[in-house]
């Protein structure tokens, strides 16, 4: 039997960043936690308004960098001093000054890769499919509109009360996000 479409959440559309931020703060004050705010450009305040934790990305990058460094150094040393030591122009097998540039580049590479993929991972990207895309007007999220989405997974979520609550934030419009 065909079950009725589940609801992912409710999506309120706003005209300007200020009202979105206020709305978000209100919602958070109301006790809503499982929600997300969408804007066409980064807005510092939103992050605080949502009360989400600081990013763990810097740590990941640090680790990536260190691994790159050690990997690079080890490779150079192992190659030139252990596996096939050759007398190159009378230089010592482990001529560390000559090893610095490559080690450095490896560090950067390790850090950069972990940075980008870390970011994607933390953002759960790639995620070509997402319920919010079901709302036609959401296309404007990447142009000039601001959205607040309270998700059904929130314990306090109730389709009617939440919609009523959102209406009070005088949005342009509130739409249901099918899941």
């Amino acid at each position, binding site marked *: 039997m065909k079950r009725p479409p589940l609801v992912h959440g409710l999506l309120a559309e706003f005209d*300007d*960043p*200020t009202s979105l931020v206020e709305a*978000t703060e209100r919602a958070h004050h109301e006790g809503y936690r499982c929600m*997300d*705010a*969408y*804007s*066409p*450009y*980064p*807005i*510092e*305040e*939103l*992050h605080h*308004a*949502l009360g*989400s934790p600081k*990013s763990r*990305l*810097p740590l990941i*990058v640090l680790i990536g960098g260190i691994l790159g460094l050690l990997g690079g150094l080890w490779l*150079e040393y192992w*190659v*030139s001093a252990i*596996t*096939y030591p*050759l007398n*190159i*122009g009378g230089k010592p097998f482990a*001529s560390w000054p*000559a090893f610095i*540039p*490559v080690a*450095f*580049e*490896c560090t*950067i*590479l390790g*850090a*950069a890769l972990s*940075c*980008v993929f870390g*970011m994607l991972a*933390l*953002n759960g*990207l*790639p*995620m*070509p*499919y*997402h319920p*919010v*895309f079901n709302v036609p007007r959401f*296309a404007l*999220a*990447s*142009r*000039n509109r601001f959205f607040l989405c309270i998700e059904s997974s929130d314990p306090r979520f109730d389709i009617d009360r939440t919609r009523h609550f959102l209406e009070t934030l005088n949005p342009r419009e509130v739409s249901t996000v099918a899941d």
Partner: protein
Amino acid sequence: MAEPTSSQSQVIAPGHTFGTVTDQISAIVLTRKTSMGWYAGFSVALFFTLVLLVSLTNLVITGIGIWGNNIPVGWAFDITNFVWWIGIGHAGTLISAVLLLLKQSWRTSINRFAEAMTLFAVSCAGIFPLFHTGRPWLAYWLFPYPNTMNIWPQFRSPLIWDVFAVSTYATVSALFWFVGLIPDLATLRDRSQSKVGRFIYGLLAMGWRGSAHHWHQYETAYLLLAGLATPLVVSVHTVVSFDFAVSILPGWHTTIFPPYFVAGAIYSGFAMVMTLAIPIRAVYKLEDFITMRHLQNMAKVMLVTGLIVAYGYLTEAFIAWYSADKYEGFVPLNRLTGPYAVAYWSLILCNIIIPQLLWLKKVRLNVPLLFIISIIVNVGMWLERFVIIVTSLHRDFLPSSWGMYSPTFWDWSTFMGTIGLFLTLLFLFVRFLPMISIAEMRAMLPEAKVNE
């Protein structure tokens, strides 16, 4: 859209809204129909790309001998072009990374295609180290990989440093560029009319939704990348300069090289950005976003870096004399008066004398003049590398092996070919991707402020 303004202070003309910015920039890619001009330019560029292919094929089939290289001049156009291209690349990273860290908001409208330029320049640069080898099909030996010979790269060689530096640089630049593109790809995805367009842009956007959470991680990542790219960009040209500084050749073996090469790189890079920005803003009516302020600032950067380079030349000559080393001492003399004196003097003219015009505000505000100067600087910086490489090699320690180098047709065709490749990529870029970061532009609009 608003009238083009000649305001010198603003980085974006007044009267723009989220909507207009988004529409105008994305329109270039989505709705605006491809102009005849684009096709014309593109086909010219494509032609030179074919010239490159022919030259390289002949090179592989016949050998390096088709170039003018010889003993003592083992390196000539090949490495000159390599260094020149890499240098040009640097401006992109510098603008997007360093200026970001320095909170130079004016960068936003030029960083996107400056980064693109970086990528294309680096790919042009990459061609030379690969094909200047006598047996390019074995170039993969320069990468460390376990093999049946139990032989590995020789990590004391600056060329290996190059391999790591340049490939790292290419990778990081690409990532940086792509990360910057993600939100705009989302915009294109959402605004594209064609199904194909939406699919492709959608794929590339990876489902970007612009959620606050996304933006937070994204901003962090972008900042971190900028933080990583900055030392990287400095290291890359430093390593490139090591190719020469680490050798024992008088004229190459010079401690001033790293800073002086990096400065030179930025110098030529900004010149190239200007060379590209001026026509593009004219053709695509982007005067609102690439304002006089941008051109002015770039001119100033060129002036500064140009002076650093000039200082480099002086130091080189001074140390050569001060060292009281007969070989070192001979190098500047040979450059000033030797058979390649013409090249040396024209490089002084292009890199030091003419750019001094930029002291004048009038000049800085004169777009055509800026364009010409930027091209002159590009030429000058190419000559600089040529002079450093060839004049040092052609008369080294033993007079018995002194010789001369002059380029052959194939030297030229390969060089021109890479320029063709560069432009081809650039044309494709402006046609299919937003050449200005829309998201960042939005953030710059007055209405973007959140007022408590």
